[in-house]
């Protein structure tokens, strides 16, 4: 929409501003052609205002010719034609309007505006239109810069949001505070165990921070991180939590995104093992088949606990993250059967080159 026409306040100022040239034109008529003030004003004010509205069309002319598509020839022809047409249209209307006002107030043809004034008005209108084109161009350029800045800020905010979300999920306050509570309990029961747990917790968070600074790690590093995580969870849940790893040694060299398995294990414990009075075994299997890395995770679930699949927002976020990294080259699916939860995942197998690790 037009920056002036679309806002009543600006439109009012615009209309008021055009009164000045209207009075000037009327004054010219009074001085040069000895017309009465009343007839002159009657003619001049509507005439200049009408041109004021014709001028706003230059905004759409500018918009129709984006900066990137401009060539000298195009600019000259489009802008020239638009200016000529607009000023010509206005002059015709002026002649017509002067006739009406002249007839009504008793001036014969050519008295209100003579031939000389007509050509003067035409040239003025032409120049004004060109100036208006320029002004609109400048305005549009500023608008573009501003919207580009806004977009940049919006995308920065979005990126920071995603980063925060990721950090938050890594730090997982529930896990942290419960672990600290366990340490607090252990201090009087088994001081050595409390120390061990504090060290495990420290190691886990240190590794998490180190790993999340990198985009890609290998599966071996991720498995190691998970083992620290599971050690802490085992102290919290005792015999309830059992873990079985079956990882093809070749798979350990696979490139994977940071925090690739840990959120899945956390999910398996939180929504599976945790809900079972007798606990169970979390199974993690990984093999390589025809340049694909397969991961399968399963855990028993409480058949009465409904939230496993229904509100799997954590899993959905995880899937979105993996999908954004590998697009259609990844598959993640999960289902519940026989009181077990199964998750299968396939991503392209890309071994990390020897020596490319720098830690």
């Amino acid at each position, binding site marked *: 929409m037009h920056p002036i026409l679309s806002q009543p306040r600006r439109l009012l100022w615009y209309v008021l501003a055009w009164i000045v040239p209207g009075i000037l034109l009327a004054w010219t008529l009074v001085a040069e052609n000895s017309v009465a003030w009343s007839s002159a004003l009657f003619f001049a004010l509507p005439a200049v205002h009408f041109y004021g509205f014709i001028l706003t069309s230059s905004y759409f002319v500018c918009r129709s010719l984006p900066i990137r598509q401009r060539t000298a020839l195009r600019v000259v022809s489009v802008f020239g034609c638009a200016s000529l047409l607009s000023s010509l249209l206005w002059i015709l209307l002026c002649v017509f309007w002067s006739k009406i006002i002249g007839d009504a107030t008793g001036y014969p043809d050519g008295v209100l505006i003579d031939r000389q004034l007509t050509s003067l008005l035409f040239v003025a209108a032409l120049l004004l239109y060109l100036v208006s084109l320029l002004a609109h161009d400048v305005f549009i350029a500023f608008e573009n810069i501003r919207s580009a800045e806004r977009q940049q800020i919006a995308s920065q905010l979005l990126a920071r949001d995603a980063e925060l979300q990721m950090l938050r999920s890594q730090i997982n*306050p529930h896990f942290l505070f419960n672990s600290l*509570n366990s340490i607090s*309990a252990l201090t009087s029961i088994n001081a050595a165990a409390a120390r061990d747990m504090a060290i495990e917790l420290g190691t886990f968070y240190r590794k998490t921070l180190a790993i999340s600074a990198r985009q890609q790690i290998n599966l071996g590093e991720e498995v190691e991180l998970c083992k620290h995580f599971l050690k802490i969870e085992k102290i919290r*849940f005792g015999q309830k939590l059992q873990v079985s790893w079956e990882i093809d040694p070749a798979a350990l060299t696979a490139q994977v995104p940071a925090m690739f398995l840990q959120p899945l294990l956390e999910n398996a414990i939180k929504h599976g093992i*945790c*809900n079972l*009075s007798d606990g169970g075994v979390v199974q993690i299997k990984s093999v390589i088949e025809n340049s694909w890395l397969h991961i399968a995770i399963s855990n028993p679930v409480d058949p009465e606990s409904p939230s496993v699949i*229904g509100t799997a927002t954590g899993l959905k976020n995880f899937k979105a993250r993996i999908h954004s990294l590998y697009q259609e080259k990844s598959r993640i699916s999960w289902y519940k059967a026989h009181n077990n939860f199964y998750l299968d995942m396939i991503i392209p197998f890309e071994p990390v080159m020897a020596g490319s690790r720098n830690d």
Partner: protein
Amino acid sequence: MIKTLQLLIVDDEPLARALTREYLAKHKDINIIGEATNGLEAVDAINRLAPDLVLLDIFMPKLNGLEVLELTGRTSGVIFTTAYDQYALKAFDLHAVDYLLKPFSQARFDEAIVRARKLLDATPANISELIADAKLERIVVRDRGQVHIIPLAEVEYIEAQDDYISIYWNGKSIMKTQSLSALEAQLDSQEFVRIHRSVIAKLSAVKSLERISKDAQVAVLHSGVKLPVSRAGYERLKVFVSQP
């Protein structure tokens, strides 16, 4: 003479329970009468032992802390313990219900005990308000000593009958002592619609609307069940359901 309090510890983590026992050791006027390791055990223990005070973990297997309170009808004598749950914390502050954030110190624990003891005689209704405000993910019903957990995803419709409601899900039904309006307030209004004074239907369970007479409509569910639709219910429904 201070009355000896009978206390129940509810927490799924053995170390967390051990810590609570340790903190309680210096409170000679408190008697630990039981420990529960999940929500179902907690419901059972509260009913069986009628403790004066319950230390209740929120995030637990089987049933969460709020569901335990709803099923037992307990409205006072509770101190919540939780590691981190921003939504619950907000609700607690709102209803002035006391809670302990893990890890907590002996001093903070003692303070909560003193406060709870003071409140034992006065019976604040805060906890029932807390439960009424909670948004549901599932409906829990206690029927002849058995606890049923009904995921909202499986619920078709709920019907009011006198002073209880019947919940229909997966071709089964169960009765619960609750008012339809109280349940309605806890359900997502984008998912469950009060289609009649005595019926709430789940939108995704509704197949179509049928006109049976000049100004009477029925909602036909995918299961074939037909439910009455009142004039006001029709206004609420037609926003969601496309007409044949």
